[in-house]
């Protein structure tokens, strides 16, 4: 026997849905049989049709066979407003038929013949079988059903046709079809108090790696928009992190002095302080030095672009001009029902698309609000930060403290400070009968900085850092006072010394 030495490598069949192909590490495998399961309303039919139209757009042929009694005319009507729906694909490249009566009259054997003929007749490289659960109901025995699944697999592999089986899912814990098929894509709607989040999970994918866990998605006019879970998608940065330490100006010369020359470039930094202290003002000044060569993005979740432009104008910053020149982009995601991973991907896409060097995120609290599991936040920020840094962005994220005044100066999440290379603390303090703003640099990793507490003001020129606050203590508690002179007899035994 002669061996030709050819290794049959399974080709990928991209779904054409960027998020899903990322989760599947490139797409499905040619000739594989995959179950798409989920209860009614989870989006199986839309997902399958979107994959069909994308497959056709990339040159493939598709046969869509439904075993349900309902008409696919109605289904196509529902699909027509979707942007992926291309009428001209039907019937030449995308062919819809009903197998309901074949199943009724000829049983599973008839369905196998039908599928085989449709694949061959339409030279289909992708086949969808909608209403897969009815085949199990029609089988006279579990053995016959297993034989049916096996035959579908054999024909799919032999004809190099990838098959999607759509089903509501089995009530049994382990069903034979799940052990037999090459992969399972599970769709789910989960209620979190008053909001629902749709998620997709790969239950199994033979012959390929995939991103594990639940990945949120939306169904919009563009079809399924799937957002691979940030912690999985960026567990390892997508580009090599070529880091060489250098400083980057904050856009506030007096603050740069305190920082020892500016923020460390290509790092993640926190700006922590109460409402109204000047965090957004900082963000606008941070982006003011941006240029086409060093572009920036204001990723805001609170203030609208119009308000930001007006506010920038009062500081003498021509934000509209910066936008026009392509130096700055304002991305506004007003608080609604965001998906945390969607926000993360929008940030990464924005940085990647324009080669953003300065990214201001306003702010952390809104990101937490969008998380259905706030316990993820530290890992989310960590992996997102790694990706953004590797993409050469210097990130500043505003974080609002709960109290306007008072002693609490804890960061919103445990472990967050260790993820940030730089931390700037802004506080109100009461001194000399006035509320005053103070700022201190708490952390610049592996670098020197001026740790002194400084007054600052917001003037028509923006944030102006004043001199160090001498002669007072406890300013960060919100109530600055002159240092107490402690008498030796006030100290506990063993601590007494001259004061």
């Amino acid at each position, binding site marked *: 026997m002669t061996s030709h030495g050819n290794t049959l490598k399974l080709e990928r069949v991209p779904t054409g849905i960027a998020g899903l192909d990322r989760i599947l590490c490139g797409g499905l495998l040619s000739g594989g049989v995959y179950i798409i399961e989920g209860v009614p309303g989870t989006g199986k039919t839309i997902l399958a049709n979107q994959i069909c139209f994308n497959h056709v757009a990339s040159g493939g042929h598709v046969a869509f*066979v439904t075993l349900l*009694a*309902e*008409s*696919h*005319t*109605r289904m*196509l*009507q529902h699909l027509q407003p979707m942007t992926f729906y291309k*009428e*001209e694909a*039907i*019937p*030449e490249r995308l*062919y*819809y*038929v*009903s*197998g*309901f*009566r*074949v199943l*009724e*009259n000829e049983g599973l054997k008839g369905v196998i013949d*039908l599928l085989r*003929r*449709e694949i061959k007749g339409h030279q289909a490289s992708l086949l969808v079988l909608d209403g897969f659960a009815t085949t199990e109901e029609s089988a006279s025995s579990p053995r016959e059903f297993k034989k049916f699944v096996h035959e579908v697999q054999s024909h799919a592999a032999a004809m190099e046709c990838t098959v999607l089986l759509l089903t509501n899912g089995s009530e049994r814990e382990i069903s034979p079809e799940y052990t037999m098929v090459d992969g399972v894509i599970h769709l789910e709607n989960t209620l979190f108090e008053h909001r629902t989040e749709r998620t997709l999970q790969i239950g199994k994918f033979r012959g390929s790696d995939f991103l594990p866990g639940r990945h949120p998605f939306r169904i919009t006019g563009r079809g399924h928009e799937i957002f691979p879970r940030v912690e999985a998608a960026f567990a390892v940065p997508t580009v090599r992190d070529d880091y060489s330490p250098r400083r980057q100006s904050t856009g506030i010369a007096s603050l740069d002095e305190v920082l020892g020359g500016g923020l460390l470039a290509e790092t993640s930094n926190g700006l922590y302080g109460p409402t109204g202290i000047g965090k957004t003002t900082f963000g606008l000044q941070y982006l003011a030095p941006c240029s086409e060569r060093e572009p920036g993005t204001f990723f805001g979740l609170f203030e609208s672009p119009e308000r930001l432009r007006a506010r920038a104008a009062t500081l003498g910053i021509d934000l509209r001009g910066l936008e026009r020149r392509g130096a700055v982009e304002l991305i506004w995601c007003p608080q609604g029902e965001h998906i945390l991973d969607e926000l993360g991907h929008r940030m990464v896409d924005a940085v990647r698309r324009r080669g953003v060097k300065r990214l201001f995120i306003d702010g952390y609290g809104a990101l937490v609000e969008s998380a259905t599991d706030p316990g993820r936040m530290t890992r989310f920020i960590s992996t997102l930060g790694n990706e953004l840094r590797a993409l050469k962005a210097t990130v500043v994220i505003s974080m609002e403290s709960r109290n306007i005044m008072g002693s609490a100066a804890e960061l919103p999440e445990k472990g967050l400070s260790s993820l940030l290379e730089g931390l700037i603390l802004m506080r109100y303090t009461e001194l000399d009968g006035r509320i005053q703003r103070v700022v201190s640099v708490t952390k610049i990793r592996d670098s020197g900085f001026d740790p002194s507490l400084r007054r600052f003001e917001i003037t028509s020129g923006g944030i102006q850092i004043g001199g160090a606050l001498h002669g007072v203590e406890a300013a960060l508690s919100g109530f600055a006072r002159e240092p107490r002179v402690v008498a030796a007899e006030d100290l506990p035994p063993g601590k007494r010394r001259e004061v």
Partner: protein
Amino acid sequence: MRTVLVVDDEFGTVEVLVAALEDEGYRVLTAANGRRGLERLEENKPDLVISDFMMPLMDGPTMVAAMRADPAFRGVPVIMMSAAPEDALRKHMDGYDAFLRKPFRIPALLQAVAAILARAPGPTSERPDAPV
């Protein structure tokens, strides 16, 4: 009584068409694909065929082409129907007398059926009791 053959793989569509046409006094035959449709033609020559475009085994245009090639059925009028628009399908089909895009309203279908039968009475029809 005039006879209409409905050829469609979609069970629900066939059920609706049968009910609507029978209510109007037509005799209705059905087939689930083009191949079965040709068999039904041989068994009972109808006055009109209403056929879906996309079907398993044999699609509507192939069935119509076979009808037009057969002198026995060349004159039987055909209403083609599909969820896809006529413009997209025109290059794939020939020999049909009218087109209805799915979903359609039953009155529109009945109007098309009556109009076609009025101008091209089928060979087996008995015009006096034909519905209008």
